[in-house]
């Protein structure tokens, strides 16, 4: 027989240890590494070599077998590299029959597509390297004694704290699978670079998408950025000097001042009022800013302009 089924080890004395099932090909160095990592992390894991034995073990664990008490599997780690079309049916079956069991799919680097298939079919966590499995297993170990409450307890309490304090957003990737409910624990650790992307994208979108919540925070940075050029002397000047702006000074100032404000203003644009001006049409806002900047650059000659205009007009 090719099947090599290691019987589930009896529950640890006292507290129940994590009950973990590993579905792995019979001969695979990668699977050996995974099993060693689980063992090193202290996970109580039984290994089976195919999906049929996995179903038998899961059912026996859930209903009790040969006098052993019923204790549903808490985690099932499935190596999907060798999976065929029919083998993937294990995921929806386990999701349906034992929803409390966390299903972890593992794929070698070359089998990323199988990991994605497993995710689509119901895997809660998809890991792409043995190191990730070891790290994930380590994250389970501290909670090993609390494995039974974790599937149910975090599900309920997660909601209340989430609403009052939505600010703490950082969910550590490796440790999340332990506490999160099966349906909400989707984490693609194989795509480690993605989380940072997701973190950077909202930063870029913040000025545009959520104007209301971030308005007070995002407003200050843009204001100083815009003001520096004109703020020194143009704050009061623009209204007065507008009529005088058009003539000579714009010719010298545009090359220096205009490029800076239009480039910096869109990303840091103030959400409430300035956003509507900058986003829909840059030209209108740009005209104003250009005028202000032009004046700002000319502010050196503000008094001179007044004097000059007054003198010239007066003269």
């Amino acid at each position: 027989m090719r099947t090599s089924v290691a019987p589930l080890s009896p529950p640890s004395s006292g507290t129940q240890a994590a009950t973990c099932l590993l579905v792995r090909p019979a001969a695979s160095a990668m699977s050996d590494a995974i099993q060693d990592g689980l063992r090193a992390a202290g996970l109580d894991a039984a290994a089976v070599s195919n999906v049929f034995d996995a179903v038998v073990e899961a059912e026996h664990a859930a209903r009790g077998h040969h006098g052993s008490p019923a204790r549903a599997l808490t985690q099932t780690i499935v190596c999907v590299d060798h999976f065929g079309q029919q083998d993937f049916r294990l995921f929806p079956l386990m999701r349906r029959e034992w929803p409390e069991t966390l299903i972890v799919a593992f794929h070698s680097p070359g089998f990323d597509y199988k990991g994605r298939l497993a995710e689509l079919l119901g895997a809660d966590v998809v890991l792409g390297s043995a190191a990730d499995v070891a790290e994930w297993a380590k994250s389970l170990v501290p909670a090993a004694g609390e494995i039974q409450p974790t599937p149910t307890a975090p599900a309920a309490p997660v909601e209340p704290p989430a609403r009052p304090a939505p600010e703490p957003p950082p969910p550590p990737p490796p440790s999340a699978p332990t506490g999160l409910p099966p349906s909400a624990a989707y984490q693609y650790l194989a795509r480690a670079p993605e989380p940072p992307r997701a973190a950077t994208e909202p930063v870029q979108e913040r000025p545009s998408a959520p104007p209301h919540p971030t308005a007070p925070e995002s407003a200050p940075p843009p204001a100083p950025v815009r003001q520096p050029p004109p703020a020194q002397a143009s704050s009061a000047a623009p209204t007065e000097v507008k009529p005088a702006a058009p003539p000579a000074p714009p010719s010298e100032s545009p090359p220096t001042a205009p490029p800076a404000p239009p480039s910096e203003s869109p990303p840091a644009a103030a959400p409430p009022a300035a956003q509507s001006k900058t986003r829909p049409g840059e030209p209108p806002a740009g005209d104003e800013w250009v005028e202000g900047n032009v004046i700002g650059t000319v502010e050196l000659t503000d008094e001179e302009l007044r004097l000059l205009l007054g003198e010239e007009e007066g003269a």
Partner: protein
Amino acid sequence: MSAAPATRAEGDRRVLLVCRSAGRRALLARLVGSAETHASAVEAVLAVLRRRPQAVILNLEDIEGRERDLLAALRRSRPETPVYVIAQPEDEPLARGLVRDGAADYFVLPTDIYRLPRTLEKAALAGLRPGEAR
């Protein structure tokens, strides 16, 4: 003819078919009578564990090289439930090997399959163990 009373005497146990081909499934259902069909072998294993069918019939063509693993899992979960194999003529050596591994019998398509009802009847009456049918 006497298969029906025998089946009733066994209780409400059905024959479990593992077959994905719709045409072949219809043929088997007609031959077997009361049958529960599964397109997925994994689902069939769970059904065998939970419902203790009268017999399991595997369509070898649909198991995709997992026949030995499946047979071992079925034997381990329900040693008393006979497992029959339906094979194409070219797969007869494989089917014969499965009988050596614990399957109760095998039937070669297309004509040998009509021996299935009689075999099931015998097994139901005698309570044969796997491997004793032939």
